[in-house]
């Protein structure tokens, strides 16, 4: 079931949390929302889950408009809010029972779904404890369990892997990837590896606007095209403008008196040019290291005003 966001804006007073964003998530896609803190990811998710209304624009989830038919939207989504709020004094099973009943699951199905969720999220050993007694990782799993208990078509997960240790991370990623085969999943995260591991598509948000919307591979390709070369000279008097004048160098930054970080123009291998430059100007080149661009660089580049 698909999610469509059309010209969505949300402002609080004069501040625009979300500024005219558009995107579409097809059925069965796993989309990763990437962005610095305060970019508007959580706000967008709150609007998609009908918690807050948009200031303008339209959001359609499973064909239902969040403003016109919020009840239908809520029925077909599973939502894991940021910070994973839970009733700490309830028992795990008690809480999952509440979640199931709030979604109008009745009779024997309630217990069946609880058992299924407990199994899926690996909560067997902890299921009879109060939620307040669980560690963060297990609480996160309870949050996931309540989001999935009514078998929704669309999952909206706000930082689902926050606070998990590497073992749990792998498990939860596995769960999400499995779910993603049949369901539509929109998740937000800061961690690049996760995006690469789980998501078909990546949407990068900055300051309330979408700055990239592409498959993970394409973004990777874009990033690859702009290599970074770290150089170290023996002399301390190398001038930046000279470095930038080298053919193929897009930008140069001094990280210390003798170390420089050079950004190559897309597709150019500047290592030879740097070597020749050093020879020409009689500088001694002590170090030359190339780093291929990765997703994190694209992220930083797109979300940082200074390059």
């Amino acid at each position, binding site marked *: 079931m698909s999610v469509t966001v059309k010209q969505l804006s949300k402002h609080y007073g004069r501040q625009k949390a979300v500024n005219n964003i558009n995107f579409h998530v097809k059925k069965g896609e796993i989309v990763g929302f990437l962005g610095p803190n305060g970019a508007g990811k959580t706000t967008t998710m*709150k609007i998609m889950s009908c918690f807050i209304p948009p200031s303008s624009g339209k959001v359609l989830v499973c064909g239902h408009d969040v403003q016109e038919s919020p009840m239908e939207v*809520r029925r077909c*989504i599973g939502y894991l809010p940021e910070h994973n*709020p839970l*009733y700490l*004094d*309830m028992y795990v099973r008690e809480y999952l029972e509440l979640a199931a009943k*709030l979604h*109008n699951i009745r009779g024997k199905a309630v217990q069946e779904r609880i058992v299924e969720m407990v199994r899926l999220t690996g909560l067997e050993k902890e299921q009879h404890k109060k939620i307040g007694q669980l560690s963060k990782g297990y609480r996160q799993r309870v949050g996931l369990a*309540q989001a999935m208990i009514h078998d929704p078509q669309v999952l909206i997960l706000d930082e689902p892997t926050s606070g998990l240790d590497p073992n749990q991370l792998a498990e939860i990623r596995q769960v999400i990837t499995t779910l993603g085969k049949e369901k539509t999943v929109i998740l937000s995260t800061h961690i690049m590896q996760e995006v690469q591991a789980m998501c078909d598509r990546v949407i990068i948000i900055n300051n309330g606007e979408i700055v990239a919307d592409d498959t993970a591979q394409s973004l990777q390709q874009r990033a690859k095209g702009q290599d970074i070369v770290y150089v170290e000279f023996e002399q301390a008097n190398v001038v930046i403008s000279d470095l930038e004048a080298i053919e193929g160098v897009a930008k140069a930054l001094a990280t210390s008196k003798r170390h420089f970080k050079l950004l190559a123009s897309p597709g150019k291998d500047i290592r030879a040019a740097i070597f020749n430059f050093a020879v020409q100007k009689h500088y001694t080149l002590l170090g030359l290291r190339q780093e291929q661009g990765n997703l994190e660089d694209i992220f930083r580049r797109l979300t940082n005003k200074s390059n």
Partner: protein
Amino acid sequence: MFTILQKEINTFFSSLIGYIAIGLFLLTTGLFLWVFPETSLLEYGYANLDALFFIAPWVFMFLIPAITMRSFAEEFKSGTIELLATRPVTDLQIILGKYFAALLVVFLALLPTLVYYITVYQLGATPGNLDTGATWGSYIGLLFLGAAFVAIGIFASSLTQNQIVAFLLAVFGCFFCYAAFDYLSKLNVFYAKIDDVVELLGINAHYLSISRGVIDTRDVIYFVSFISIFILLTQLVLERRKW
């Protein structure tokens, strides 16, 4: 709505709130009715429960805000309102679930006072000499009064994240609605002109009216509208808070 009601009741009775609320109510009324010589029925000489119905609203005025203060304030504070608000339940269902749960606690607090009724029944010069009509009327009036206070308490809780603020607002609200109108009606502006109208805005007037033992529809309508207004106000506040 029943799911929420069940959850709230479980919370009241899995923590100490429910037991303390009922316990303190019974303790206070018990002390006033049977121990303290000034108000004790045993010293009073007349077999009726008037003292109970006189003291109970004041005890409710502190007790009910204490029961209802966490109903919405805690949900806002811990963020769990986001869980409730993104389920296919309407705001009204959430409010009514919490309302009736709190009302049930009040009802359970009043239930044991039937023992007092039986005691006074036996104490009469001839057993059963008390005015049963008035007594049952008073119980019903007290239940209505409790229901009204719960509505005020739930509304106050929806206004803030801080439970203490919710408590204080509710206490003031209950006091104002119960007693203040009687005092206001004595103001020169109103006295001898519309003082009876002002008095009728307050809960006390209707409480006393039902306590006579006559279920006057005007009083019933008053209480039902009073409660409805506060529940609707709570719904408005909830909508604005989320939005």
